[in-house]
């Protein structure tokens, strides 16, 4: 397209020839005018002689603005001064060549903006001297693309993931440094090799599937598989394969990003195993495991045994707070729990304590709890291991009681033996003397008192001996209302007139299985204590009997829990001095007494407790210093089958038992 130097001189021709020449010149002129490359003709003095449309558009000038101007108008300021020298040098040694080899060239637009250009210089000898036709190409876009390409290449080169190009035949066409690092093959070894180089034999079938998908233009993302290194090692990898398209959109190959997930896979496996281990421990232990959020105090996770212990499903317990599964009796409240949590938080150590817990159905029980602070997934949690220790506490209490009773039994046995041996001569020798004395004499009367005292003493000894023999009693079906009424008549005789006796016995409370003598003993014992608590002051002693239905909440006690049955509730309440907590906690201990020496044995309530426990019931004491005391006795009512089975054979025995009582 660029006219050559040799073609440039145009000889003078005849008119026919001239016409043909004009036509040819016109054709060239139009060719230059409409060429898609900017063209500028510069005269010997550096003036612009001619520009084409593309030059106008490229530099943003109108033709009139350029013609006759020095060509430097199109050159950025910093190059302007050097330009005439370069131009002179070219004119001195004119030949077609690209301008500014090894240098970046820039053009200056009318609006002052610069752009990268490539210039071809073509000297043209004319009548008016040496002209230079410059062809100018705007290469800013190309340069931008080259820049982007090198940028992408840099990214690929510096990528931590292996990036491999391959064609549709599976031949490797590009191989980045990470690919070399990962697989051990140099670019020289890998390029041109088949991709199966990297695939373990047993997975060769995968490649066909991948290529098939690529050919359809589909992308494969994060396909986890195994690839093989040069040294034979197999790696767990994640592949992302994308089709490479030609400009026309035709798929010609694929780019493959390969990430080594061996470590990731191992870590994930470790995590999975750890989670599995945790879950299996969480589910397998017999203890309840509760995880509560330290901030909200609500449960975020509870294992099956934990939930079962409280009568819930694990899901039902999520978001419950501690309060809702505590008895609520201080210190077993939310505040009480918060104190333990605080203690665990400040000490950094596990805290272990017993807790009075409440199940979903209102049942109360004792739990042994260990809590510790932990952080799970960045969340502060309280980890609690919970064991139902109701049985343990009951057994402990019974054992304590049993040990004391055994000690007392041994002691009582020894004491009884000694005393009875002493009472033997006292009574019998006195009786022998009385036998020798005349009837009705003063001495007979006096010595009879000695015998009476001796007998009374032996009765006391007998009572001490009887202590702890709860196992020898016979339980029969008793109308509890009747037992209480009979005991009341006795209580009246021991109640002074300063004390008002209030009796409230509900109708047909029902029958219980029990020992009438023992139960009467319990009632009289409690009434005596109540009377003594009121002392010389004016007060009230109330005895009541009622029935506690199955649907009513069961009370807790210091030892023992009630089963869900129907109960007869017997209360003995006084308006006396009451007790402090410490005293109330110890009243059932053998030999514990608040009474003056000689006024009480310290065995009464201990015996009461033993008797009621022996009846399958519980004793509860509520007392406040200065406000009196209330003892509540819960005795399980006999079941229908027990009653009918017992009725038949009870007739005579019941009567015998009645005679023996008191």
């Amino acid at each position: 397209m660029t006219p050559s130097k040799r073609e440039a001189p145009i000889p003078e021709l005849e008119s026919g020839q001239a016409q043909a020449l004009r036509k040819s010149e016109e054709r060239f002129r139009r060719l230059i005018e409409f060429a898609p490359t900017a063209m500028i003709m510069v005269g010997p003095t550096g003036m612009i002689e001619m520009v084409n449309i593309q030059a106008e558009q490229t530099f943003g000038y109108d033709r009139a603005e350029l013609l006759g101007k020095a060509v430097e108008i199109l050159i950025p300021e910093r190059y302007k001064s050097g330009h005439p020298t370069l131009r002179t040098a070219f004119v001195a040694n004119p030949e077609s060549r690209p301008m500014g080899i090894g240098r970046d060239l820039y053009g200056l637009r009318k609006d002052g903006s610069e752009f990268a250009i490539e210039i071809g210089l073509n000297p043209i000898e004319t009548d008016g001297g040496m002209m230079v036709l410059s062809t100018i190409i705007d290469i800013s876009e190309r340069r931008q693309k080259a820049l982007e390409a090198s940028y992408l290449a840099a990214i690929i080169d510096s990528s931590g993931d292996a990036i491999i190009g391959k064609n549709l035949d599976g031949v490797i066409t590009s191989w980045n440094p990470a690919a070399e690092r990962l697989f051990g093959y140099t670019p020289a070894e890998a390029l041109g090799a088949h991709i199966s180089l990297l695939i373990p034999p047993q997975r060769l079938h995968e490649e066909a599937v991948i290529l098939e998908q690529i050919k359809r233009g589909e992308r494969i993302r994060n396909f986890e598989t195994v690839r093989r290194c040069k040294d034979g090692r197999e790696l767990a990898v994640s592949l992302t394969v994308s089709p490479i398209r030609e400009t026309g959109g035709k798929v010609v190959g694929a780019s493959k990003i390969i990430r080594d997930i061996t470590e990731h896979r191992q870590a994930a496996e470790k995590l999975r195993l750890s989670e599995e281990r945790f879950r299996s421990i969480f589910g397998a232990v017999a203890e309840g495991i509760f995880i509560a959020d330290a901030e909200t105090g609500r449960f975020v996770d509870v294992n099956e045994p934990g939930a079962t212990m409280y009568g819930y499903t694990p899901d039902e317990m999520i978001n419950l707070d501690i309060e809702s599964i505590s008895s609520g009796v201080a210190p077993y409240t939310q505040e009480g729990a918060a104190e333990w949590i605080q203690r665990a938080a400040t000490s950094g150590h596990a805290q272990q304590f017993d807790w009075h817990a409440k199940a979903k159905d209102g049942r109360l029980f004792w739990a042994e709890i260990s809590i510790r602070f932990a952080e799970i997934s960045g969340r502060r949690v309280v980890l609690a291991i919970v064991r139902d220790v109701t049985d343990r506490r009951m057994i402990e209490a019974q054992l304590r009681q049993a040990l004391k009773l055994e000690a007392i039994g041994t002691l009582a046995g020894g004491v009884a033996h000694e005393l009875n041996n002493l009472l033997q001569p006292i009574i019998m020798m006195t009786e022998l003397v009385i036998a020798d004395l005349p009837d009705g004499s003063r001495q007979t009367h006096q010595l009879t008192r000695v015998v009476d005292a001796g007998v009374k003493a032996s009765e006391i000894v007998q009572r001490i001996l009887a202590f702890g023999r709860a196992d020898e009693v016979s339980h029969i079906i008793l109308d509890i209302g009747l037992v209480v009424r009979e005991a009341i008549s006795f209580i009246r005789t021991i109640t002074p007139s300063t004390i008002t006796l209030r009796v409230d016995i509900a109708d047909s409370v029902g029958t219980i299985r029990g020992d009438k003598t023992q139960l009467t003993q319990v009632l009289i014992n409690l009434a005596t204590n109540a009377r003594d608590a009121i002392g010389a002051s004016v007060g009230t002693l109330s005895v009541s009997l009622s029935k506690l239905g199955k649907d009513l909440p069961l009370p807790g006690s210091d030892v023992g829990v009630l089963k869900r049955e129907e109960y007869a509730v017997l209360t003995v309440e006084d308006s006396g001095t009451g007790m402090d907590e410490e005293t109330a906690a110890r009243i059932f201990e053998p030999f514990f007494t608040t009474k003056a020496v000689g006024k009480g044995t310290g065995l009464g309530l201990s015996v009461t407790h033993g008797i009621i426990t022996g009846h399958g019931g519980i004793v509860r004491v509520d007392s406040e210093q200065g406000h009196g005391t209330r003892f509540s006795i819960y005795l399980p009512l006999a079941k229908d089958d027990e009653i009918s089975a017992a009725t038949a054979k009870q007739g005579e025995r019941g009567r015998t038992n009645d005679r023996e009582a008191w």
Partner: protein
Amino acid sequence: MAHILLVDDDPLVVEALSDAITNKGHTLVTAINGKEGMKKFAEGVFDLVITDIVMPEKEGIETIMEMRRLVPDVRIVAISGGGRMGNVEFLHMAEKLGATATLKKPIRLAELYEMLERCLANSPEA
């Protein structure tokens, strides 16, 4: 009148019972423990033996069993001031092991005479 052996380690008990028994005209041999009791038992022929249970040297239960072996139809009354081992009542045990009757100390005079009468009722010498 009967011939009675009384075994008890408490001298006051022995004295009281001796007075009461001899008052009724019976003859009496006494021993202060099971060992001495056995010796006296072997030396004589008794219509009745009254023995304590808890005694040093040889206690009553063993004494009763040994006497019963020697003289199967001997009448033995066990007496005790109480006491038990675990759930076993000594007097109850004595009865099971061969005592004809038992009496709890302190024994009333009337009780003693009633027992003597009852035990000696079928005695050939009574």
